[in-house]
């Protein structure tokens, strides 16, 4: 009986999210097609409650309630809370923007919650079946989200592209899983880890490559990044913001758990692969972004490069490495959400601002927004004393400690190239004159209270992070050590 209660308790966050999502779905049906503050705020509330439930779980729960399907440790719990918080912020940021984007449907928050549910299962999965179910739930909800505004050609294109390539990636993963099952006779992580510890098997390497390729697709790691620029550009910005945030975290967390869990004995195989992917990602990302004129495409390439930097940390195979990746992930998410919230608020003649040229002279029209964006861009470029610098610094320290000199030098050189396109945005906002015709205002800037707060907070955190990086670092360290306890 105790065991049962604890078992249920351990999945309380998932239960909360699932029940609320279904409840909101029904409420939505009765209240009509429109999204409403009621639905959004209930959704946000449930995400926060779920986060609270995760935090307040009894410490010894894993001893009683542990199952073979879900891991319950500080690493998964912390990342769950992180994903839940991110999603809550994203939901708040997009709430008042949906109407302007002809996306004002109650399905939007509901689908987001279903996707988060998938992520929670996927991140905590201790079994390939569980992982796969989570992954599919997460992805399917996002496919629908992308396609919500299907009457626009660009959106349909993005949705179809995302769906087909996504399914292909899933097929890769599934094939890899089936190979592993065939050779180890199990889908449970701990069994697989024990059975693989003996020695190298060629088919397992093959399976690993398949799974790595599939997950690399999900986190848009080059050379599996092709979809990212198109999908980022094609999706409505409210959806792009979501795609760029929580699902990335979930996939990276799973990636780390996979490599440091069942596949740990194959380190000497995946570590060089990871280094290669990381170099490719950084190079493709920065050079791809260099000549973009569309901001969302630029940010897509910037994501590719940034995931590359994170992989430098993962490839370090040390507590410092994982610690640095987690720190990077947190800070990068703050920057991403800040940047996209900025884009959400910037409209011209009712349409979202899309090209970099549209930002011309923004610093004169709206100094505060321009300042916040400039801070975020300098931070993304990794210029001290902003937070982005510390994220990169920690990754590089870990990599140097692991002896990955070449990787660090390449990474640093790509940051210089990267600085060029972030500077381009700052240049457009600050050095160019605003284009305004006599008849229309150059921008309709009606920053909603929520987004205004989010942008300010994001910029503020980036500026003041250097004052007290200690607590975040310590937490990241604590969380990272869990992966190495065995």
């Amino acid at each position, binding site marked *: 009986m105790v065991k049962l209660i604890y078992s249920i308790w351990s999945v309380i966050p998932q239960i909360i999210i699932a029940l609320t999502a279904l409840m909101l779905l029904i409420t939505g049906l009765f209240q009509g097609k429109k999204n409403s503050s009621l639905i959004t705020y209930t959704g946000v509330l449930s995400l926060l409650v779920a986060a609270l439930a995760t935090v307040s779980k009894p410490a010894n729960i894993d001893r009683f309630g542990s199952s073979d399907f879900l891991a319950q440790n500080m690493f998964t719990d912390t990342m769950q809370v992180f994903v839940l918080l991110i999603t809550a912020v994203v939901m708040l940021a997009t709430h008042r923007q949906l109407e302007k984007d002809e996306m004002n449907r109650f399905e939007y928050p509901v689908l987001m919650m279903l996707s988060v549910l998938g992520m929670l299962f996927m991140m905590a999965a201790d079994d390939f079946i569980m992982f796969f179910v989570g992954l599919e739930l997460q992805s399917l909800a996002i496919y629908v989200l992308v396609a919500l505004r299907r009457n626009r050609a660009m959106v349909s294109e993005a949705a179809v592209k995302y769906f087909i390539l996504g399914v292909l990636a899933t097929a890769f993963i599934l094939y890899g899983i089936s190979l592993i099952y065939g050779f180890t006779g199990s889908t449970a992580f701990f069994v697989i880890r024990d059975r693989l510890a003996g020695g190298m098997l060629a088919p397992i390497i093959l399976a690993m490559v398949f799974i790595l390729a599939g997950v690399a697709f999900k986190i848009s790691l080059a050379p599996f990044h092709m979809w990212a620029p198109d999908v980022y550009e094609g999706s409505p910005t409210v959806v792009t913001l979501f795609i760029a945030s929580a699902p990335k975290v979930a996939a990276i967390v799973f990636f780390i758990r996979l490599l440091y869990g069942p596949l740990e004995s194959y380190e000497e195989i995946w570590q060089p692969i990871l280094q290669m992917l990381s170099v490719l990602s950084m190079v493709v990302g920065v050079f791809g972004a260099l000549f973009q004129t569309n901001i969302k495409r630029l940010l897509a390439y910037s994501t590719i490069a940034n995931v590359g930097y994170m992989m430098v940390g993962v490839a370090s195979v040390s507590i410092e490495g994982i610690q640095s990746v987690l720190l990077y992930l947190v800070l990068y998410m703050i920057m991403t959400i800040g940047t996209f919230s900025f884009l959400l608020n910037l409209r011209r003649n009712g349409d979202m601002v899309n090209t970099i040229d549209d930002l011309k002279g923004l610093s004169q029209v709206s100094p505060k927004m321009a300042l916040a964006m400039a801070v975020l861009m*300098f931070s993304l470029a990794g*210029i*001290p*004393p902003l937070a982005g*610098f510390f994220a990169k*610094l920690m990754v*590089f*320290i870990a990599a*140097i*400690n692991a002896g990955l*000199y070449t990787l*660090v*030098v390449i990474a*640093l*050189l790509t*940051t*210089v190239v990267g*600085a*060029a396109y972030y*500077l381009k945005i*700052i*240049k457009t906002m*600050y*050095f160019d004159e605003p284009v305004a015709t006599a008849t229309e205002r150059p921008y309709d800037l009606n920053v909603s209270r929520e987004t205004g707060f989010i942008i300010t907070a994001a910029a503020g955190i980036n500026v003041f992070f*250097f004052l007290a*990086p*200690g607590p975040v*670092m*310590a937490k990241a*360290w604590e969380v990272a050590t869990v992966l190495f306890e065995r």
Partner: protein
Amino acid sequence: MAGLPLLSVTIFLPLVGCLFVLMVRGEGQTSQTNAKTVALMTSLATLALACLLYAGFDPLSSEFQYVDEYYWLADLHISYKVGIDGLSLLFILLSALLVPISILASWNSIQYRIKEYMIMFLLLETMLIGMFSALDFVLFYLFFEGVLIPMFLIIGIWGGERRVYAAYKFFLYTLLGSVLMLVAILTIYFQTGTTDIPTALDFEFPQDLQKWLWLAFFASFAVKIPMWPFHTWLPDAHVEAPTAGSVILAGVLLKMGGYGFIRFSLPMFPDACQYFALFIYVLSIIAIVYTSLVALVQEDMKKLIAYSSVAHMGFVTLGTFTFESMGLQGAIFQMFSHGLISAALFLCVGVIYDREHTRLISRFGGLVHRMPVYAVFFMIFTLGSVALPGTSGFVGEILVLISSFKVAWYLAFGAGLGMILGAAYMLWLYRRVVFGPIINDSIRTIKDLNWTEKIVFAPLLAGVIFFGIYPKPVLSLTETATANILKAYNKSEEIEEALVTEEIEQSSTWLN
């Protein structure tokens, strides 16, 4: 005053000033004047604090003084640690002097976005003073790179026609150099287990590693100082930057490179320094002679002075790598004096640019008839740049010259040639701009210096002449610091001497 972390207060006072400028509300003339006044007062207060630092400084102690240390990233042994020796203090004083001068010089010439402009300069001041006093590598890098943000915006927003190109070139060029230094810093961290600078200064690095680390630091400092052939960003940045931007750029930013060589490369990598010394000599001599020749044919005044800066910095690198107390002192003095003189020369160009909106030498001539006071100021600074005895420019160059003569006669020959060429381009510039007939009609109505401009020039003029006649305050301030930095070299010389005496003794016993 006891217990107050004076150095940290000096570093962050301008930052507090930024907040005050930010709080200035309202539109129009009054708020602009308020913003300017707040910025000026802050920078003057910082100067006063820097003077207090000087007053309480013990030049004979070989330890870092005013050391403040706080936990920052304790797990990684990275801490907030600042402290100064004579070398740092000299440049802190220079920065603290030039920022109020810059603000005053832009009082009337900057017409738009004044609040932001003032914030940028105060931000720059915090970064500069912080950089010169950082005793932790991560902190140092933070300030070193942080300088890029305000300078990029200063050039880009308030600059001339090709400002975007210049701002980019400045930013990316220096960033490229700096990231290589970051690799070196991380390697040092890996070797020593801490980013504490005093620890690293006493650490003995393996010889092979020294060369790599030296090259990585070189990449950053050679761009910053700048040495030939890494100097191409400088003329662009100078020409496009607003006058005050050029003042800070030439006055302090270039010194970051020289400071880096002296603070880090010399004491940490003595073997690598000696290994690469010839390489530095060659680049320095090329810089001195070649850029002087380039300066000779410039048509834009700012560009000419920018190239002359590269030549003068050639003396600095030459002096630094003689590994002699005299050469090093000369290099430091040359940097200090160049900080005063080049700042003043850019201000001189700024004065006539504000009136005529051109910097082409051919558009001027006969200024002495309309602007006699200006002509006197300009002349003294020109002579300072030429290194006329009695000006501060002379002291640094003669020390470097003598010291380089001890290394090899041809180095002194090259440097001497550079001095002659320096005299040629500066005096020719002066003749073309100030003397001769008035060829341009608009100059017939040009006005002489106003009071603000005279106030701006006065401290620089006083500095150039005072330190030219009596250089002792500067030299004695940096004496202990230089001795400290050259410790490693004297040690190896002592060992060599000991070996030689041993050999002589051996041979004498053999003879007997």
